[in-house]
């Protein structure tokens, strides 16, 4: 066992240098262009028991998102607004590096960045999720379930979450009871935020990194854009740094990609 580990480590070191070298000459190991996205597939309403759901595949990466709803008390500072809570589980079947147990840094960051995109873009009309002011409101629970990890989890999770919210139907409210068997109106949504992730490798910036590319990257940037061409969330991730001009370029690219993808959402 120990021996196998060592061999794979050496293979990885060789591969790592090869990937970095290729990128320097403008090529990617899977033949894509630097600003080219992998093939995206959606399966909507994958989980009919959930209020809304979507399975998204970006290349080999697969993320399933389910939306469930329940009633609860509003927060004291927003008595007339519903709530959103986003969680992410890096399911152990998705990668040899994932372990069962409490959420780690990576899953918390994924959930919080996806949450920020949805919340700050004002995608959900929370005021329409008020049942009785100060007493009862709807809580929207978005669960990000990573099924196969081949890089760019945040874009995949964000896309799946937005799709799941767009097709979500609210459960019926009968008195104080929630009837999950009957689906009622559509969830009030009014925006389609799109997340775009970039990584920098040896000074070159590329869109939609694979896991291999994420492993050799210097640093990553996630930019979420709105329909109006605004930025609604950003996050620098990884231990490297960016120049100002690099960030401005990525914003431009994120806005273009957001527009393209939104036509298919």
């Amino acid at each position, binding site marked *: 066992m120990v021996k196998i580990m060592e061999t794979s480590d050496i293979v990885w070191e060789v591969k790592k240098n090869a990937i970095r070298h290729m990128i320097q000459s403008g090529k990617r190991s899977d033949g894509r262009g630097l600003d080219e996205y992998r093939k995206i597939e959606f399966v909507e309403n994958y989980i009919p028991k959930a209020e809304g759901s979507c399975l998204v595949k970006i290349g080999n990466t697969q993320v399933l998102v389910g939306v469930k709803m329940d009633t609860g008390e509003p927060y004291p500072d927003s008595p007339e607004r519903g709530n959103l809570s986003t969680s992410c589980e890096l399911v152990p079947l998705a990668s040899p590096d994932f372990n069962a147990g409490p959420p780690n840094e990576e899953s918390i960051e994924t959930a919080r960045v996806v949450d920020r995109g949805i919340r*700050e873009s004002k995608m959900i009309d929370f005021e329409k999720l008020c049942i009785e002011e100060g007493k009862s409101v709807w809580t929207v629970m978005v669960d990000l379930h990573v099924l196969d990890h081949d890089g760019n989890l945040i874009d995949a999770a964000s896309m799946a979450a937005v799709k799941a919210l767009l097709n979500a139907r609210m459960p019926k409210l009968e008195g104080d009871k929630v009837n999950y068997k009957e689906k009622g109106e559509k969830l009030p949504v009014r925006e389609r935020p799109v997340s775009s992730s970039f990584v920098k490798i040896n000074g070159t910036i590329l869109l939609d990194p694979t896991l291999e590319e994420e492993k050799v990257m210097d640093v990553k940037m996630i930019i979420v854009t709105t329909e109006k061409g605004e930025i*609604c969330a950003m996050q620098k991730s990884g231990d490297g740094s960016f*120049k100002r001009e690099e960030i401005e370029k990525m914003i431009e690219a994120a806005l273009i990609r957001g527009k393209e993808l939104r036509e298919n959402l």
Partner: protein
Amino acid sequence: MGGAKTDIELIKNGKRIDGRKFDELRPIKIEVGVLKRADGSCYMEWGKNKVLAAVYGPRECFPKHTQNSYKAKLTYRYNMAPFSTDDRKRPGPDRRSTEISKVSREALEKIVFLEYFPRTAINVFVEVLQADAGTRCVALTAASVALADAGIPMRDVITACAAGKVDDEIVLDLCQEEDNFGSADLPIAISPRTGMIHLMQMDGILTPEEFGKALDFATKGCLKVHEMQKKALKDKYEKIGEDYGNE
């Protein structure tokens, strides 16, 4: 951004709610070497924020399997005291502080010469004693002063500062009301020597033009704070020099 409804006028006659100009920082005080046991420490007041940072290390790395044969392991713990906010904060790490700790550690990892200290650990601890918006920036600014105070070799003393959008105006260094009721927040950390951006987060709505202006503001804010960091460090060692001279 809270996005909560408010009747508060955040900007009145070209002045902000606390009387500042759009590109004005809150008052800042930095003290170096305030803790006896730590290898390096820093106390910082920034507006109503009160933050204490301590650095231990390079020291033995535990548990041993987390050692790295090529470089030191850097840890960063951002923690808010239960009494630091209006509503008591439940003690211990939560999702927010875990994320802040992660991005702050990542901001420092390429600044510290970790490769000089293989197999060791360098631990940075930051306690927010009183919170008043912008705590992650105060924490990171104080942490890098504490690292310098610990004598740990670094490529630069990193500085963090936020800019944001309040009532359609881009402003520097949001205070609590502006953070709660404003419409965007952009905390960054830069290496003042190179201008490279080592931490960047954004929430709220900004157009690309507004983003550019906010980034300008935050960068200028960082450069001002950086002068204060350097002065605080110099003051401590000048004082030691004077005390030594008087003996």
